[in-house]
C-alpha cells in the first residue's frame, strides 16, 4: 500500500461505458430514420412525403426508446457517470461534428433558406416536404420558419422525454420539464399556427420583448394594430408582460419562472442541451466576460428599440448619426441570427447549453437584474453540510461557481441563475434548496452558517 508521489498520474477516466444491444437497436432505428429523411429531401412526390413522415417517426421512436432503455434500470437519483469521458459530452470528435452540423443548419436557415428549398414559385427540397403539413394546419405552403418550428418543437418534446427519464424521482425537474414542453408545443407552435389559419394576427404570447426584439418594429406594430380586437389584445398583452406580469412573477419566483419554465430558448437548453450543461465555463474570467457581454447586448437592444419607436412615432429615421433602420438590421443580424441562433444553439456541444441565455439574452439580463436586487428567490445553503465536492459548480449550465458560496454557508443570489435546480439535484449531501422568501429579501446573501 506504500505509494510514491512520483507515480505517473493518469486521472482522466480511461473507461467509456458502451451501449447495450437494445440501445444499439434504437440508435440504428434513428439512423435509418435520418437516412430516410436525406433520401426524402432529394426528391419530391408522395413517396418523399411518406419517407419524411417515416423518417420523423423513426427518429422520434429512436430517441424515446433510447431514453427509456438508458434509464430503465436506474433508480431515482442522478448519475452523471462518465459524462466527461464520452466523446459526445467531452468536446470529442462526435461533439465537434455535431456542433458543425447544427451551426451549418442555422446558417442555411437564417441566410440561405433557398438552399433548403424555399421559393416563391413553389418550394422544393426539405421545405417542400413540409408543405402538406403546413397546408393542413394553416392552409399555406411551408417556409423555413415552419420547418424550424417543427424541428425545434420535436427536439424539446423528445429530449424532454429523455430528461424526464433521467431525472425520474425528482418532482421539481419533472414538473418544470413538462412545463417547457407544454409552452413550446402550445404557445410557441400550435397557437400561432392556428391563429394564422384563422387569418388572425399570430404571436407567441410568451415570447416577450426584448427577447422578441421585433415586438416594437413598425411592421409588427402595424400588424397588431390592424388585427382587430385580437391584435390590440396582443399589443396590450405584450406590453403588460413587460411592465406588469414579468416583474410580479420575477419578484415572487425569480427569473426561473421564465428562463427554465416557459422560455423556448431555455426549453431547448434544458432538454436537448442537458447532456452539455457541464461544458459551461465556471471560471471567474468567464463571469467577467458574461457581465460585460450580456449587459452590452441589453444596452444595444434598448438603444435599437428606442430608435425604432422614435422612427415609428416621428417618421424620422435619422437621429444624430444613427439610422434606426441600419441599427435594427445590425441587431437582427448579429444578435437575432448569429448570437442567439448560430452560436446559441450551434455551440451547445462545445460551450454548454446556455451560451445565448448567459452571454447574450437581453431578457435574461433584465430579469437577472431584478432577481439580483428585488426578488424573493435565492438558493439556500444548508448550514455547514457542504463537502466542496464540486458537482453543483460543474453541472451549473450558467457557469455559476455554486460551490464557492455553498462551502462558505452562503446563500446563492446571482443575476444569471435560471433556477433549473440541477445544483440541488446533483448535490450528494442535500445542501442546496431553491426557495422564495420575503422576510429577508434584502439580506439574502448573508452568511447563514452556524
Amino acid at each position, binding site marked *: 500500500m506504500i505509494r510514491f508521489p512520483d*507515480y505517473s498520474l493518469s*486521472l482522466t477516466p480511461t473507461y467509456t461505458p458502451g451501449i447495450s444491444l437494445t440501445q444499439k437497436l434504437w440508435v440504428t432505428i434513428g439512423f435509418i430514420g435520418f437516412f430516410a429523411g436525406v433520401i426524402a429531401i432529394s426528391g419530391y412526390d408522395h413517396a418523399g412525403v411518406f419517407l419524411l413522415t417515416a423518417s420523423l417517426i423513426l427518429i422520434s421512436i429512436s430517441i424515446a426508446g433510447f431514453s427509456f432503455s438508458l434509464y430503465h434500470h436506474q433508480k431515482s437519483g442522478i448519475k452523471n457517470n462518465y459524462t466527461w469521458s464520452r466523446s459526445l459530452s467531452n468536446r470529442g470528435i462526435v461533439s465537434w461534428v455535431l456542433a458543425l452540423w447544427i451551426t451549418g443548419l442555422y446558417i442555411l436557415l437564417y441566410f440561405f433558406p433557398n438552399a433548403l428549398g424555399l421559393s416563391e414559385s413553389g418550394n422544393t427540397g426539405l421545405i417542400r416536404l413540409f408543405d402538406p403539413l403546413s397546408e393542413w394546419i394553416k392552409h399555406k405552403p411551408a417556409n423555413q420558419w415552419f420547418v424550424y418550428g417543427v424541428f425545434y418543437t420535436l427536439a424539446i418534446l423528445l429530449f424532454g422525454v429523455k430528461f424526464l427519464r433521467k431525472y425520474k424521482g425528482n*418532482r421539481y425537474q419533472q414538473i418544470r420539464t413538462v412545463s417547457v414542453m407544454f409552452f413550446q408545443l402550445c404557445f410557441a407552435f400550435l397557437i400561432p399556427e392556428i391563429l394564422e389559419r384563422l387569418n388572425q394576427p399570430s404571436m407567441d404570447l410568451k415570447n416577450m420583448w426584448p427577447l422578441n426584439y421585433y415586438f416594437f418594429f413598425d411592421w409588427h406594430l402595424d400588424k397588431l394594430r390592424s388585427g382587430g380586437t385580437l391584435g390590440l389584445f396582443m399589443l396590450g398583452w405584450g406590453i403588460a408582460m413587460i411592465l406588469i406580469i414579468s416583474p410580479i412573477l420575477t419578484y415572487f419566483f425569480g427569473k426561473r419562472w421564465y428562463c427554465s419554465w416557459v422560455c423556448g430558448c431555455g426549453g431547448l437548453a434544458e432538454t436537448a442541451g442537458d447532456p452539455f450543461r457541464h461544458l459551461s465555463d465556471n471560471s471567474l474570467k468567464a463571469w467577467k466576460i458574461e457581465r460585460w457581454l450580456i449587459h452590452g447586448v441589453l444596452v444595444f437592444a434598448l438603444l435599437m428599440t428606442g430608435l425604432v419607436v422614435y422612427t415609428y412615432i416621428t417618421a424620422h429615421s435619422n437621429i444624430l448619426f444613427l439610422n434606426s433602420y441600419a441599427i435594427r438590421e445590425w441587431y437582427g443580424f448579429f444578435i437575432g441570427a448569429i448570437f442567439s441562433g448560430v452560436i446559441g444553439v450551434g455551440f451547445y456541444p462545445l460551450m454548454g447549453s446556455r451560451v445565448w441565455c448567459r452571454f447574450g439574452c437581453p431578457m435574461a439580463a433584465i430579469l437577472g437584474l431584478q432577481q439580483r436586487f428585488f426578488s424573493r428567490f435565492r438558493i439556500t445553503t444548508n448550514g455547514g453540510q457542504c463537502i466542496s465536492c464540486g458537482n453543483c459548480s460543474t453541472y451549473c449550465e450558467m457557469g455559476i461557481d455554486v460551490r464557492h458560496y455553498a462551502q462558505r454557508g452562503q446563500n446563492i443570489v446571482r443575476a444569471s441563475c435560471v433556477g433549473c435546480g440541477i445544483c440541488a439535484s446533483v448535490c450528494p449531501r442535500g445542501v442546496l434548496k431553491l426557495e422564495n422568501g420575503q422576510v429577508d429579501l434584502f439580506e439574502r446573501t448573508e452568511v447563514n452558517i452556524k
Partner: protein
Amino acid sequence: MYVYMGHMRWQDIIPYEAWFWEKNKINLVKDLVTKIEPQHKTISTASGAHYQYDQLIIATGSSPKTLNIEGINLDGVTGLHAIQDLAYLESRSKQLKKAVIVGGGLIGVELAEMLHSRKIAVTHLVRENGFASSVLSKEESGIVNQHIEHHGIDLRLDTEIIKIQDNGQGSVASVTTTTGEDIECQLVGMAIGVKPKLTWLGGSGIEVNIGVLTDVFLKTNVPDIFAIGDCAELRNPDAGRKAVEPIWYTGRMMGETVAKTICGIETKYQPGIWFNSAKFFDIEYQSYGDINPILSGNQSIFFWKHKIASKSIRINYTLNGVIGFSALGIRLRQNVCHQWIHDKIMIEEVLAQFELAVFDAEFSKKYADKIRNAYFEQTGKLILKKANGRYDQVYRFLKKAKSTYT
C-alpha cells in the same frame, strides 16, 4: 470518486481556481517537510529549502488505516485517500474483473460505487452486522444493506478479512475471510478508517498521541504551533464530540478558528452540535446531534420508515426533549434541527412543526403527515400539524428561537 466515475475532471474538484493563491498573497509551495525546529522557528524540506515562520499550522491530514495481515503489501491492495490512490485505481481498473472491499463505512461504499460503475464485480466485507453500524440503527442499516445489494454488490456482513493470497507474481489472487471462504479478486480496497499522519514530526518536541495534541485553541504544546484537521487530537473535546474527528467540516471549522486566532482574535474551537452526512449509492444520509442507536439511560427512539422507498427518519429523544436526528432519503435543515436540539424541544412539538426541518426540493412528496401518523400508531398520542415549512416561517422560527435564549 467523482473524477473516477467521470462526473468531474480533476480541475473541477479543486475548491479554488489557480489565481486564488496569488491573489490572496499565499505562497503555495509543493514540497515535503522533513524537519521542524521550534527553537529557531524554521522548517526544512526535502528539496533542501528552509522557511522561517512566526506561526506554524500543522495540517498534514491522515492516512488510511491498514491491517497487520498476510499479503497486505501485495500489489493490488489499495486505500482510497490520496490522488496517487486514484491514479493507481485508474491504472488497475482495465484488467480488473473482481474486487473485494474491506470496511463498512463511507469510503467503502464510495469505492464500491466507483468500481460498480465500471461493471467490476464487488464483494464487500463488513465486520459488523450492518453498514455504518456505529451511527445507523438496525432498521436503517437494513435499508442501506438492501439498497446496496439491489445495486448488485455482494455484501458479506459479520465477515472479516484474514489474509490476502499471492498469485505467485506479487499481486493479489484472492482474499480469505473469517467464514473460511476464499474470494477470488484482483484488487483489495482497504476502507477501514484513517489515522493521523504523524511520523514525520519525530524530534520536533511536539506532543502527540493518536494525533497532534492540542488545547481548545488548537495550540500544540510548542508555542506558535497549531494543529488542525484530520491530524489534530483535542485534549479535552466537548461533550458529544470525539478527540479526533477526521471529517470535512471540522477541518474547515478548525481552519477558520485558527485563522481568527493568528489574526489577533483569540478564538476557541467550538464545533457545536455534531452533524454529518453521507451518501450510500442513491440514498442520502444526514445526522444531527446524538444519534447513537444504542440507548443509554432515559433515552428513547422514534423511528419512521417509508413502506417502499428507501427513506426513514429517526429521532432520539428523552423526556427533556429531542437529542438527535438521523435521516435517510429525506433532506433536513441543519439550522432547525440544531435549534430543536439546542433548545431541548419536546418530540411532540418537533413533530408538530416537522415541516420546518424538511429541506427536500420544491414539489417533493411530503412525509410529515405520515411521520406524525406513525408516532400516533406507536404511542397513541395525536399530533396536529402546526407549520407549513415555507421559507418565511422557517426564518421567523429561527429568529424567534435565537432571541429567546440570547
